[in-house]
């Protein structure tokens, strides 16, 4: 364990292609791209089925079935089909992130009190405005929670990029295991945990900024 900290704080680890800054940047790059793509797909879909209240059963069950997909299995499948590269890493990470975002968005919108929606229609808001001015703000804590869960899973799972020859913090874990340099494995794992905690903190901050003060106590 102390070897792991020696490894973490030695100056050799903080520069070069295999240095921590490079690996951290790669890790963040895979994570951010996968999360953005998942948000772009899952949030509008969740809003649509939540607002219209149609197809929810089907979509939520499909999404939950998707949660059961083994990530390394998806990774290997895509590698066998398209070869190694960025795509095989992003697809399983997206598959991991879409279900919590989709389900939380859908549930968030669905659980907005019907009286509130009726009232907003009553005062003359259009459907689009009902969604953007009433339903989304009220559902925001749940939607953000979904994105936060997804982000956490992506950050901790992006280590699999190293399994198919890419970079990221997983490089330390896979290489360390293969070369029996266990201080590198532990050092890499500590970095992943630290990054996951930072991600969590970031989302707590975002939630404070975005959620309407009236909803915070919930």
């Amino acid at each position, binding site marked *: 364990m102390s070897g792991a900290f020696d490894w973490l704080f030695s100056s050799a680890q903080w520069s070069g292609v295999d240095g921590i800054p490079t690996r951290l940047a790669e890790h963040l790059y895979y994570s951010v791209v996968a999360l953005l793509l998942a948000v772009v797909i899952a949030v509008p879909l969740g809003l649509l089925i939540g607002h219209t209240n149609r197809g929810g059963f089907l979509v939520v069950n499909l999404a939950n079935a998707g949660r059961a997909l083994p990530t390394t299995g998806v990774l290997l499948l895509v*590698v066998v089909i398209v*070869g190694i590269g960025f795509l095989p890493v992003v697809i399983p990470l997206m598959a991991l992130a879409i279900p919590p975002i989709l389900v939380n968005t859908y549930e968030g919108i669905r659980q907005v009190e019907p009286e509130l929606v009726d009232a907003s229609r009553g005062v003359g808001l259009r459907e689009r405005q009902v969604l953007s001015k009433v339903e989304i703000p009220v559902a925001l804590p749940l939607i953000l929670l979904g994105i936060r869960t997804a982000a956490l899973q992506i950050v901790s799972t992006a280590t699999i990029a*190293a399994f198919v*020859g890419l970079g990221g913090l997983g490089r330390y874990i896979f*290489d360390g*295991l*293969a*070369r029996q340099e266990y201080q590198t494995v532990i050092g890499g794992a500590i970095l992943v945990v630290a990054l996951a905690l930072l991600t969590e903190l970031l989302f707590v901050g975002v939630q404070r900024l975005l959620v309407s003060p009236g909803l915070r106590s919930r």
Partner: protein
Amino acid sequence: MSRVIRGAVVAVLALALLPACGGGGGSGSGKTVVVGSANFPENVLLAQIYAQALQAKDVTVDVKANIGARELIYKQIESGGLSVLPEYNGALLAYLDKTATATSTEDVNAALKAKLPAGLAILNSSKAEDKDALNVTRATADKYSLKTIEDLKAGAKDLILGGPPEFKTRQQGVVGLKDVYGLEFKEFRSLDTAGPVTVAALSKNDIQVANLFTTDPAIAVNNFVVLDDPKNLFSSQNVTPLINKAAVDSAAQTVLNNVSEKLDTPTLTQLMRQVAVDKKDPDTVAKNWLKSAGLV
């Protein structure tokens, strides 16, 4: 990785073999010879070949296939719990002597004989080798006219090499390729140990040179070209019977030497293809080959 997958495949196959692992020594007055194997398909197949060849010569045999890693089974043969193991000479030497430098078959076997404890012995090595090798696609081989690792000299700077992570730092890998052959590749990609990722990366041309093992059925299936290693960078891994001398008499030793005589790398690759690709029972594959080789 591939060992793990192979191991999983064999775990299933091993269930089929369980009846054979029951109480031995039911008949005959001679001592029971216990043939063991490590937990990957090729080793299980070799154990079946040894066992059936011995049975055909009226030796009472008990098979304990698919036991585990070398650390485990070596201790068993040392203590007499096992009598015969299909071994790979280079890997066994590396296990017994971490600083060993021998790479040719003769040197490895000489070093092995010096290192083995008095109760154990190796019999004749077969020509069959399951060793590290550099592989390219047929297209790459044609483009750079590659036959041996030496031929990579001109093209290496344009080519990406892929293999398991440890390949980058060990002598029998990137380090030795530079020291012994003077090769520096454009890049090294850390992939899996001759598993599906490496095979897919090579066949999709994401990497152009891959570290695979010589008996890997994927080589034949994908029409890859194995590059010769004229300077013996990669140590020999001849399939060689390791025996506990007290448990294997000279008649049984002759039987095992006869098997080694007939076994070579193309044969073993072909047999492995039947097991790994065609999903045949190792038991049946062993039986058919022994018959065709005239050993039973």
